[in-house]
């Protein structure tokens, strides 16, 4: 490209970025949302869950125990769990789980749950009548199950002792010697890479595609609809320069969004792990370089593809209705890639569009540089990116891009 061509591409990209970011809604979409999404999800959401759980823990619950004889230590355990209970006689039913006459009592909340407990020689039968759609009732069931489980454990221990056996060796005949973590030969960096490899490729793929939708449409179908493209096409720049300038602008906007989202994700993981850099994987220079290369190839392909589809469209509405469902083309492979076992994976997986880059990112984040895989995904990605760029250039060379429906 000539110097003049380079300057024109830069002028187009700069103008597009400036114009796009002048809309405050865009700033929220490309900076605030990506930056805050994961911290909100991983930090604020658990805090909310904790406060809800504490609220449930503080509830005083009312239950009815229907029994033919409740063991004294069990009755004591129930009352220690903020449960007020009254005892009734067991009704005559074919099974304890059958709600019978008590159905309405639970449904109208006169009791949060009903525990039925029947002695039968050496074993006891029990059932809990509850309403799964009521939080109080579910909490009552949860507390009763905990109490019963504890009581069952103590009963097992008593019986083992009565049988003349040693309790611990009977219940736990196989034991791990030492710390479990000491047996793992993977380094903490590799472990972090493994965890991140399950998040980052997914985030990159989905966010690259979705954050490129709006600028791609705005800079192509939007220009077409607003009638600004005609004046641009009369300027001394080639259509290829126009495509490159717009591609650069969309890639910059998308890149900023993706980087911020990854930053937010790492911050959230670091916060959850309560350590600053433990979550950073150990990566070689080669792995980092290949990660950058794979992301660039993916961005070239996705952005060119979106620009081409948006340029084909006659209006913003039409472009939106084509590009938005296109997210499925990324989402399904992205989810599918998460469950593929990387150990001994066949080479052809690295030649499938979208899947190849996602798998490459997973491998590289685990610091695995397998030459055969790298060659396959690099060649196939260059091919797909070239194909997308060629398709985009064809769309930009169409004569009818100057016309619009409006």
């Amino acid at each position, binding site marked *: 490209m000539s110097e*003049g061509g380079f*300057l*024109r591409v830069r*002028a*187009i990209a700069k*103008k597009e970025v*400036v*114009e796009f970011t*002048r*809309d405050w809604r865009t700033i929220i979409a490309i900076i605030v949302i990506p930056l805050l999404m994961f911290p909100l999800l991983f930090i604020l959401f658990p805090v909310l869950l904790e406060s809800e759980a504490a609220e449930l823990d503080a509830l005083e619950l009312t239950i009815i125990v229907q029994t033919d004889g409740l063991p004294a230590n069990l009755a004591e355990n129930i009352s220690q769990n903020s449960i007020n209970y009254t005892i009734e006689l067991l009704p005559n039913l074919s099974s304890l789980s059958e709600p019978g006459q008590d159905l309405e009592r639970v449904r109208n909340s006169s009791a949060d749950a009903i525990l039925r407990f029947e002695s039968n020689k050496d074993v006891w039968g029990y059932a809990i009548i509850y309403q799964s759609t009521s939080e109080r009732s579910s909490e009552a069931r949860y507390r009763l199950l905990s109490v019963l489980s504890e009581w069952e454990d103590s009963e097992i221990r008593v019986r083992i002792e009565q049988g003349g056996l040693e309790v611990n060796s009977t219940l736990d005949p196989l034991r791990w010697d030492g710390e479990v973590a000491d047996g793992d030969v993977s380094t903490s960096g590799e472990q972090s890479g493994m965890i991140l490899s399950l998040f980052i490729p997914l985030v990159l793929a989905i966010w690259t595609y979705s954050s490129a939708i709006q600028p791609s449409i705005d800079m192509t179908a939007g220009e077409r609809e*607003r*009638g*600004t*493209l*005609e*004046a*641009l*096409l*009369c*300027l*001394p*720049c080639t259509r290829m320069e126009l495509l490159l300038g717009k591609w650069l602008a969309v890639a910059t906007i998308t890149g900023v969004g993706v980087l911020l989202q990854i930053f937010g994700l790492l911050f959230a993981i670091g916060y959850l792990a309560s350590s600053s850099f433990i979550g950073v994987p150990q990566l070689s220079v080669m792995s980092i370089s290949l990660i950058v290369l794979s992301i660039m190839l993916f961005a070239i392909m996705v952005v060119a593809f979106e620009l081409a589809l948006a340029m084909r469209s*006659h209006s913003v509405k039409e472009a939106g209705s084509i590009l938005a469902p296109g997210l499925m083309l990324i989402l399904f492979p992205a989810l599918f890639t998460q469950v593929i076992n990387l150990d001994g994976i066949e080479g052809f997986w690295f030649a499938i569009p979208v899947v190849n880059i996602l798998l490459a990112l997973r491998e590289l984040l685990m610091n695995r540089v397998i030459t055969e895989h790298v060659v396959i995904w690099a060649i196939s990605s260059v091919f797909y990116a070239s194909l997308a760029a060629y398709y985009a250039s064809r769309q930009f060379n169409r*004569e*009818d891009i*100057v*016309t*619009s429906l409006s």
Partner: protein
Amino acid sequence: MPKSLLSIQEVTKNFAEVEALHEINLEIYSGEIVGLVGSNGAGKTTLLRLMAGVYKPSSGTVNLSNGEPVTTMRHELGVVPESTGLYSRLTAWENIRYHSRMHGIPDSVSWARTEKFAEHLDMKDSLSRHTKGFSRGMKQKTALLRALAHGPNILLLDEPTAGLDITSARTVRALVQQLRDEGGTVIYSTHQLAEAQQVCDRIVIIHNGEIRADGSPAELLSDTNTDSLEEAYVSLTLDQARTRKEDNDRESAFTGWWRRLFTPRTPKTTREVTEDE
């Protein structure tokens, strides 16, 4: 004899099955204002787009006098399209500067030219404003400033006074004439005969994709034996004007069928009219 600048030879332009222009022959000479006059859908905009190199002819040639394609002279071209083509989130000056930079003109040079013409068009105070709130007239003037900022030799103006108030339209016309006096060439598309008569040295009447007349206002009157340009125009365009078809897109059979499925039949008589509600 003025120097030929642009030569349009036997140009036909088709959009799918629609013939927008039919065997057009036209010479544009240096230092003249050529008015392209015709009704909506006549083919004026298509001809302008061919001259700007945005469209390629289906047959025939649109070349410079030296035989090179028109795209090689884009540095010398200033274009004001019908839609003005301004970016609403940029200021008037940023719009102008963007195009000048694409022409490779330093900001200081384009600013000096812009300032000069903005004074003329009473736009100097509006250069720092975003064009979003501009009236149609201000948009037209900004687009004109943008087209002039890099010092073009040829101006292509598509309906430059459409939507302008009387004073603004007059200012634009005076500016166009001033540019011609300074040696520039202007191709001026309009559907207003009176305006064309007032501004243009030469009028080209286009109707249904064909050139029906080409000459000075006086020549048109004498050729048609009429007393006014309006009468001349009517006598040259007696056949019914077609509707605009240039932007029609080819539609797949399925798309057409789907669209028709949800399009109610237009009633032919009052009795057939049914209330939707």
